[in-house]
């Protein structure tokens, strides 16, 4: 339940018991059921922002102070000063872990500071000894040195830094060393127990939202660096499958979210699905399948492509089976969105077999039309303004895009714009009135 609503509800409870609406036992049961109000959540967000900015400012300050007269200092002194930020951060983290092991906020802040100072110290030493540019080694060393903090100090921001770090590290290998790039997945898996722990204990908090958001975005980058490098334009099946997986996971695992920020996978997935549906109504992505192939050198039949094939197959098949679960539950809206990977696969097969983009583009124009109409109708039936508006928006985007493609004069195009605008306004006014009447 929404935190504010819960606070209000708890305030009302004594009064309800006093007036005999609820028994004391029922009120206690309700309290047990909903749990405590987590004021700590907002505190976590503030701590997150303060610790990141604080650590950055302190770190930069130290580096600037040292850097000011860097040339005049002896190498021995420079070396000691390079280690100083790290030692200070380690001291602070140890003190917090010994004295305030219960304080999540202090642990989060000092772990973040320590995470950044590990990187700063290595960078300063690299500067002192003119160490050549080797970003991947630097990044991986830094990330492996900070990842235990996620568990020892139960800190989520270092987990975010680590995930972004390993995704950036992977980027260096996607072209020449595809097998090495695949290490992204085991590296990412290191954070999974932490993610599961947070989703179990504090699913609808800023902390969980932050981690799932960073995870989802980094997984998209990681997928780009590791998959889709064998079959020409296989991204057209891989990315829709991934984004659908986010959407379905969001729908499955976050049913109690009261606002959208509490379920980033669903929001990213929903938006992504619409973007892909719309993109695939155009000819150019389908035409790229039959274009001369100029991707990195990873042969379809080479052993280095095996992990790529395996993960791609598991992803696409897994998402389709997942969507089937929603069909079994008769959740047709989710199922329709979940059909995207299958449609992309059919479109890919059609484009390859016919060597033309006409079939897949017609397929996706029809698909987007059905999905937007279904969403619109479901929204009207359920009297849900958000669903109606997203359905109308999807429909409007499709109509306008096709309209722009056609050779119709500007006057008529202008009139259609106005009509769609009026449609939006009228529907919203009618729905709001209807809602007002119901209340």
């Amino acid at each position, binding site marked *: 339940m929404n935190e504010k609503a819960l606070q209000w509800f708890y305030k009302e409870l004594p009064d309800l018991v006093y007036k005999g609406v609820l028994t004391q036992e029922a009120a206690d049961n309700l309290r047990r059921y909903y749990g405590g109000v987590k004021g700590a959540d907002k505190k976590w967000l503030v701590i997150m922002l303060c610790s990141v900015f604080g650590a950055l400012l302190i770190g930069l300050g130290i580096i600037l102070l040292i*850097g000011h*007269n*860097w*040339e005049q200092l002896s190498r021995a002194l420079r*070396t000691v000063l*390079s*280690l100083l930020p*790290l*030692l200070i951060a*380690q001291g602070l*983290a*140890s003190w917090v*872990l*010994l004295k305030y*092991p219960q304080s999540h906020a202090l642990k989060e802040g000092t772990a973040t500071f320590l995470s950044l100072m*590990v990187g700063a*110290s*290595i960078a300063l*030493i690299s*500067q*002192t*000894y*003119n*160490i*050549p*540019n080797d970003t991947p080694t630097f990044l991986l*060393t830094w990330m492996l*040195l900070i990842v*235990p*903090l996620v568990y*020892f*100090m139960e800190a989520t921001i270092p987990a975010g830094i680590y995930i972004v770090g390993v995704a950036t590290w992977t980027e260096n290998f996607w072209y*020449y*060393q595809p097998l090495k790039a695949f290490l992204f997945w085991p590296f990412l898996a290191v954070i999974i127990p932490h993610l599961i722990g947070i989703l179990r204990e504090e699913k609808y908090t800023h902390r969980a939202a932050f981690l799932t958001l960073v995870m989802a975005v980094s997984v998209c980058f990681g997928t780009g660096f590791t998959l889709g490098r064998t079959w020409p334009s296989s991204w057209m099946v891989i990315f829709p499958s991934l984004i659908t997986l986010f959407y379905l996971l969001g729908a499955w695992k976050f049913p109690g979210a009261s606002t959208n920020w509490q379920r980033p996978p669903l929001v990213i997935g929903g938006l992504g699905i619409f973007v892909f549906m719309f993109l695939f109504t155009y000819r150019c992505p389908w035409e790229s399948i039959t274009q001369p192939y100029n991707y990195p050198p990873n042969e379809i039949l080479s052993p280095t492509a095996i992990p790529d094939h395996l993960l791609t197959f598991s992803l696409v098949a897994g998402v389709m089976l997942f969507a089937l679960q929603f069909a079994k539950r008769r959740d047709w809206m989710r199922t329709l969105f979940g059909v995207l990977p299958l449609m992309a696969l059919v479109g890919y097969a059609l484009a390859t077999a016919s060597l033309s983009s006409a079939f897949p583009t017609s397929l996706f124009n029809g698909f987007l039309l059905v999905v937007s109409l279904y969403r619109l109708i479901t929204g009207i039936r359920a009297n849900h303004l958000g669903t109606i508006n997203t359905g109308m928006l999807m429909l409007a985007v499709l109509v306008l895009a096709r309209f722009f493609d056609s050779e119709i004069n500007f006057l008529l195009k202008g009139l259609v714009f106005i009509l769609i605008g009026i449609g939006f306004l009228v529907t919203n006014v009618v729905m709001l009135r209807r809602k007002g009447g119901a209340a």
Partner: protein
Amino acid sequence: MRRKYIFGLFALLIVVQIALPVSMIAKREATLKNGVVFRFKTAPVDPYDAFRGRFVALRVEVNSISKPMGVDLKYGQKVFAQLTVDANGFAKISAISLQRPKAGDYLAATVGYCHENSVNLNLPFDRYYMEEKAASHAEQVYREHSRRDQQDAYVIVRIKDGFAVVEGLYIGGSKIEEILRRTK
């Protein structure tokens, strides 16, 4: 009990976090103290790519060598460059091998671009860090002395067991920091 266990592991992590930078320092200090001195002549630099932030980008002249017969070299592969000194006292690559040489001075490097008969090596020194204000001035001086008509810039590198550490950037026989102090 659990707390003690976590703190024990945390202490171990702290030791590793410190040990790594300390080992980086120790290895380089040992090389600077006991390594053999080599002078590498710097090559003309691309004026648009010479300077990135707070360091002078170095490009060493002798980074290419004829391809050994019957050896298939790939980009990024580790190789050992055997070093000699030419008549002017500058370092020269005499041969490359995939195995660590048993005798003589050598440098661990990676394969850059391979041409039909020659191979370019990425030597393990590509930058010389300087203080922010001095850096742009240093770049200008370095560029003037790395032109084809006036090429008297070189780096002094200490090498021990194939591992190299840059000791200083010299122009016309003087350290760049000294030149900057003189011309300030």
